[in-house]
C-alpha cells in the first residue's frame, strides 16, 4: 500500500460513526419487542379520520367493462361452493316438454278409448254390452303404442349453485327413453331418445 493510501486510511480511522437518534432507537427497541406494528392512540385517531374519506367509486363504463371481463368466470364462495356463470348455470328442476312421451300418452289414450267404444257405436249413445264387447283389433298396418319406458344412462355431479339462500348440488341425469309400437301384422317399431334432466339436491351446511 502506498503512502497516500496509508494517510487516507489514518484519516478515516479517526472518524466516528454518528450515534443512532432516539427515534431510530425507539423503533429498534419496538421491533425487538414485537410492538412496532402496534399503533399509538394518536395514530389510530388520525387513521380513523382518514378512513372517513371513501375512495371514489369506479366510473360506470369502467365498472361495466370489468363486469364483462368477469362474466364468464365462476365465482367461488367457498372450498366446495362455486357460483355458476350464465353459460353453465343449472336450470330449475322443471320437467321439460317431452314430445315422445306426450305422443305415446296420446296414442295410448286413443287406443284405450277405441277399446271401450263398441264397433259401429260411433256417434250413437250406447250404455250396454260394453264389457262383453270383443276387443277390437287394430287396423291392419296401423301402429299402436305397445310399451314405453326409460332408464338412467348416466348421472354426474355438476357442482354447486346458490339458490334460495342455500347451496344446492346439481346432478345431471341422462335418461334413455324408449317407446315401442306394434301393428296388426305383429311388426314392432322401437324408438329411442336421450333426455337430460338437472336435479337440485340441497347441500348440507355445517
Amino acid at each position, binding site marked *: 500500500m502506498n503512502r497516500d493510501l496509508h494517510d487516507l486510511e489514518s484519516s478515516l480511522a479517526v472518524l466516528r460513526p454518528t450515534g443512532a437518534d432516539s427515534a431510530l432507537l425507539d*423503533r429498534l427497541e419496538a*421491533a425487538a419487542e414485537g410492538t*412496532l*406494528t402496534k*399503533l399509538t392512540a394518536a*395514530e389510530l385517531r*388520525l*387513521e380513523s*379520520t*382518514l*378512513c372517513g*374519506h*371513501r*375512495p*371514489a*367509486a*369506479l*366510473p*360506470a363504463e*369502467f*365498472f*361495466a*367493462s*370489468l*363486469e364483462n*371481463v*368477469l*362474466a*364468464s*368466470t*365462476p*365465482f*367461488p*364462495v*367457498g*372450498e366446495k361452493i*362455486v*357460483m*355458476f*356463470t*350464465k*353459460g353453465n*348455470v343449472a336450470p330449475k328442476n322443471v320437467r321439460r316438454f317431452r314430445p315422445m312421451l306426450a305422443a305415446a300418452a296420446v296414442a295410448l289414450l286413443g287406443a284405450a278409448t277405441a277399446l271401450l267404444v263398441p264397433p259401429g257405436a260411433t256417434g250413437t249413445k250406447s250404455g250396454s254390452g260394453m264389457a262383453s264387447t270383443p276387443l277390437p283389433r287394430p287396423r291392419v298396418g296401423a301402429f299402436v303404442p305397445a310399451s314405453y319406458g326409460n332408464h338412467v344412462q348416466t348421472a354426474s355431479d355438476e357442482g354447486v*349453485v*346458490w*339458490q334460495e339462500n342455500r347451496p344446492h348440488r346439481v346432478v345431471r341425469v341422462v335418461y334413455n327413453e324408449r317407446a315401442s309400437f306394434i301393428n296388426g301384422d305383429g311388426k314392432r317399431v322401437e324408438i329411442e331418445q336421450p333426455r337430460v334432466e338437472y336435479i337440485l339436491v340441497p347441500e348440507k351446511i355445517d
Partner: protein
Amino acid sequence: MNTATDLSPSASAWRSWLEAHGPRLLLFARQQTRSQEDAQDILQDALVKLAEKLRTGEFVGGQEAWMPYLYTAIRRLAIDLSRRDDRRRRREDTVGLEADLDQREASHPWFESEASDDETRTQLEASLKELPPKFAEVIIMKIWGERTFAEIGESLGISQNTAASRYRYGLEALQRKLGGARRKGDLSI
C-alpha cells in the same frame, strides 16, 4: 347495464364484489400510476389474470387470497408500465403531454367528495401524492385497503416491521402536511 334478475349467480356475485372492492383497488392503482387511464388498465389486467387463474383452477387459496394477489399484481403491472413509459419519454418530447395529463387528472378525484369537505379531500389527495411513494402505498393499503402490516409486507416484499415503520413515517409526514393546511385555515381534518 343488466338488471339483477338477468344476471347469472356468478355475475351477480362479481357485481357485489366489484362494488365492495373495486374502489379501493382503483385507489391503489391510482397511487401506483400516473393517470386514471393507466390505473384502470392495470386494474383490469390484474383482474383478468385473477379470472384466468380461477377459470383454470390454478389459483391457490380461497376468496380471502384474492385481494393480496390483486395488490401484488397491480404493483407489478404498474412497475412494468412505468418502465415502458420511461423508455417512451426518453424517445419523445412529452412536456406538453405532462401538463395535459395533470389537467386531466384533476377531473378524476381519488376520493368521494361531498360539497362540505371538498377542500379537505383535495388537500388530502395532494398530500398523499406528495408523499414518497413507498410511504403512500402502505398508507393506502392499510387505511383504505384494510390490509394488515403482515399482508402489506407480503404484497410489497418487505417485512411487517418495515411496513409498519413506513406507515408511521408516512402518517407523520401526512400529518405535517395536513397540519400546515389546517394552520392556513383551509382544512377541517
